């Protein structure tokens, strides 16, 4: 019986970070190994570093971590938000300066 439950879990893992395929199990294991803040989770799991830049996973991660630490979500320090916020094609950056050069 127990074995079936574990298998069931593996067949349908709960994905927290879709960019880097990080599951709820991965997050809980990292917390068990000693991660106590978002920076540690980000850096050990690379969660929040993919194309979504944390917009999908960080709110989920904050709720998991807050629950595990017995804190409120708004008590957790947020990771630094970095430009350009959403992924921007390099061509767009280059055309901005190339047009500038021409004028």
């Amino acid at each position, binding site marked *: 019986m127990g074995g079936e439950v574990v298998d069931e879990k593996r067949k349908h893992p709960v994905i927290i970070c879709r960019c880097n395929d990080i599951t709820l199990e991965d997050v809980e294991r990292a917390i068990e190994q000693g991660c106590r803040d978002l920076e540690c989770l980000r850096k050990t799991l690379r969660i929040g570093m993919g194309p979504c830049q944390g917009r999908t996973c960080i709110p989920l991660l904050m709720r998991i971590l807050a629950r595990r630490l017995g804190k409120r979500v708004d008590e957790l320090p947020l990771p630094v938000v970095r430009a350009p916020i959403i*992924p921007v094609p390099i061509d767009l950056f*280059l055309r901005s300066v190339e047009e500038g050069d021409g004028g």
Partner: protein
Amino acid sequence: MKVLVVGGGISGLFIAYELAKRGVRDVTVVEERYVGAGSTGRCATGIRASFTSEEHVVLMRESIKLWKEYSSGDLGRYGLQFIQGGYVWLARKEETVDLFKKLVSLHNSLGVPTRIIDRDELKNLVPQLNTDLIAAAMFDPTAGKSYVFTTLFALFRACRELGVKIVTGVGVRKLVARGSRIVEAVTDVGTMSADVFVIAAGSGSRELLKTVGIEVPLKNMPRHVLVTEAFQRAFDPLVIDWDTPGVPYIVQTVEGNFFVGREIEEEPEQSIYSQRIDFIPKALKPIAQLFPFLRRVRVLRYWIGYYVTTPDNHPIYGPFEEYENLYVATGFSGHGYMMGPVTGKIMAEWILDGKPSIPQAERLRPERFKRGQLIKEFAVVG
């Protein structure tokens, strides 16, 4: 012997690791934020021995030996990887090829097998490169890269296993001296005493040393790097565009993202949280000329980290004349990550043997600035 290492970056952790391996039972690392939160976690992860001074070449030759040894030893079991993909230094101008030839003979004389490669060989190494813009290149086959957070995680686990105490989230605010000895460190949560104090606090080192009357000529220079979305493996070497001002570079990480960096005009001590979005097109313009496919790639983010620089761009290693139990390892001027393993070795030797086994390291003592014995570069870099 009780040792307190201030700073939980690459240098502090390698120093603690080396001391513990050599049998020091009581080693504590104290870190203000989290492991790798300073310059270490912000670096571009390149590792090379192709430098322009004897000191750097010899130290990095030894460091690379250790990177290789560690990646197949205990740190490797915890995930440390060293990928020896090499460094390619591009010469857009013919006269740069002559400079590279001189550098190659310096490297070769010190046991680092760099060589000049022509455009055909370059095309094989970096197939995506537009070689029409290039006269020739210098190739350092011993160089490579290592992902910073897996390295830190491996070191953290290995240190803990060896009995090193790693205290995070506690800042050291001042040192307290009595006579010619440092007796304790005052932290956010009380004082910590030790027999030996090692300052490996990167951009915080200068202010901390001032609390015991020591002035070290360090400047914290903001340096920028951006990262793109991830792709399948394209090319292994880190590529340096030597003839473009600010010396842009590109490297593909183990995860497949591209890091692109370039030096832009900056003021020392400027906040690492300042916004300099103009960096992005400045860094990408020359690199996208060399790699046209990049135009279709997206930038995820960019960030800033400090190069903790000294007047001669070489680290400060060793004991101070003023105190008998105070040591320093800082001022790596952008090379602290790659030097991590050799830093650990040299600092453990200073502390346990009274002198480093690599003679070139002795020239890096803090007194060199007072005496005007600065390290000379074979070729002055941009």
